[in-house]
């Protein structure tokens, strides 16, 4: 994060069960939230209830846009309809930034709506860098690419994922959404060193951090976003901040969504971990 950027603070994912409480109780739990992250696709609709709540929440909070449909690594052409709609939404709500994932989601026009893994090769790198450039041209801004959680690796992969992320950011001049939980998940699934991953990420490229919970199945971990952040991920988060300095951080909860107050309590834990880690590093 450059010194010219004001630290945005600590955020949460904006979820429909919390809409009313956010708007009706401004002095309640939402007063402890500095910003919200929206799933862009939930608001790429003609109008009605989603937009009604989005506009009202935007009046009170900075927002960031997080998408799942960019499919930056797909061999299919970029979806121009999606980019047009995304840009229109960005023009409407003026987000702090726009992000999506290092992945692909579909082939020959058939969408899986899943974030599928990429082989980390020179071909993939060139392909993704070119497409990030095209997307940034359309949107008129730098975008953030998020490191993925993946369950299977490819025999052709020759570039470690952290270096792959760094190369994309440096070559495409884009930014990184560092998902610390995803590092933990992928490190377990692919048997690499999570701390070494952090060291390979260029600090100046990291604009946001994600924290989340997951489900450990024994042979693998699934990135379920349905429970609290676990202690090893908090520890990895502290390690990340000691390397990166302060980075706007949010907690992702996409399933089994608890009351807003519970998520705010967890967010306060992020504040505490960040405070301690940065004090150590100072």
């Amino acid at each position, binding site marked *: 994060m450059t010194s010219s950027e004001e630290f945005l603070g600590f955020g949460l994912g904006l979820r429909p069960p919390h809409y009313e409480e956010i708007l009706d109780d401004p002095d309640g739990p939402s007063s402890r939230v500095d910003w919200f992250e929206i799933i862009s696709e939930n608001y790429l609709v003609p109008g009605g209830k989603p937009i009604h709540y989005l506009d009202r929440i935007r009046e009170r909070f900075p927002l960031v846009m997080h998408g799942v449909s960019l499919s930056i690594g797909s061999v299919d052409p970029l979806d121009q309809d999606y980019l047009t709609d995304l840009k229109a939404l960005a023009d409407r709500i003026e987000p702090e930034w726009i992000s999506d994932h290092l992945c692909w989601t579909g082939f020959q026009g058939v969408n899986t709506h899943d974030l599928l893994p990429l082989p980390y090769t020179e*071909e993939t790198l060139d392909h993704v860098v070119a497409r990030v450039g095209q997307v940034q041209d359309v949107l008129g801004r730098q975008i953030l690419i998020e490191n993925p959680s993946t369950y299977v690796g490819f025999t052709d992969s020759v570039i470690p994922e952290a270096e792959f992320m760094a190369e994309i950011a440096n070559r495409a001049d884009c930014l990184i959404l560092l998902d610390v939980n995803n590092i933990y998940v992928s490190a377990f699934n692919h048997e690499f060193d999570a701390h070494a991953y952090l060291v390979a990420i260029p600090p100046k490229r990291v604009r946001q951090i994600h924290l989340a919970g997951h489900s450990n199945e024994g042979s693998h971990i699934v990135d379920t976003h349905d429970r609290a952040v676990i202690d090893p991920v908090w520890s990895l988060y502290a390690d990340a901040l000691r390397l990166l300095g302060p980075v706007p951080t949010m907690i992702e909860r996409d399933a089994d969504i608890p009351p807003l107050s519970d998520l705010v309590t967890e967010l306060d834990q992020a504040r505490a971990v960040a405070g301690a880690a940065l004090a150590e590093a100072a």
Partner: protein
Amino acid sequence: MTTPLTETQALFHDFIINDGPPPVAITRSTERATAEDLLSIYYNGYRLCMLEAIGDDFPSLKIFLGDKAFDALGRDYISQVRSKHYSIRWYGQGFAAFISESPQWRDRPELAELATWEWTLGKATDAADAEPLDFSAFAAVSPEDWAGLKFQFHPSLSIVDLLWTAPAFRQAVDDGATSPALPELLDAPISWAIWRDGTVILYRSMADDEPTALAAAMSGTTFGDVCEALAETQSDQAGEIAGGYLRAWVEHGWITAIEA
């Protein structure tokens, strides 16, 4: 030799979508799991994700069928219908039609009607916004312009004809009824208007000639032609009846523009 990215994605996609062979030759096993086991996470994840989307869009159909039968119906749909839009929000668009055409499900017409009803409710929820006209907009219409008057309607407004009592069943589910009365077959179809007022989804039944008059007006028929069509069944009361319909449509906030 490196597998071209196009081929990698073709193989992976074919496995997930078309039940093609798992691409184990290009993927890695780990100490804890085989490539095949790890690939199955994506195979199953796709189906679970799409099932969840359908379940969210058709909650009362899911309750009506029960989890097991709904799962079977959903997996049938997923096996035959591909998502072509960037947003999963639109995946259920063809669900009602699939049910009514599927050899396995089409002999239960109440299923397709429930699906149609629920999809229409969803469409009304996030249809485009438009400011309704009030009666003052009509005060400026000169008498000679009334016959040629055309209307624009709120984007959330839809008409649905149903032979089964799907609306009551869905309403009972929404109200939290533990044992909602099952949809019943009526003697004749009822026409329903569904629309959104602010953030609230509303609906009401329509009787007599109103469904025909509304459908005509929504397709661009002039007020004069609507009255003329009404006169075929209502003779000298056509104008009064048409006026009554129009008054109700304005009160509901259905009309957003008029063109003389």
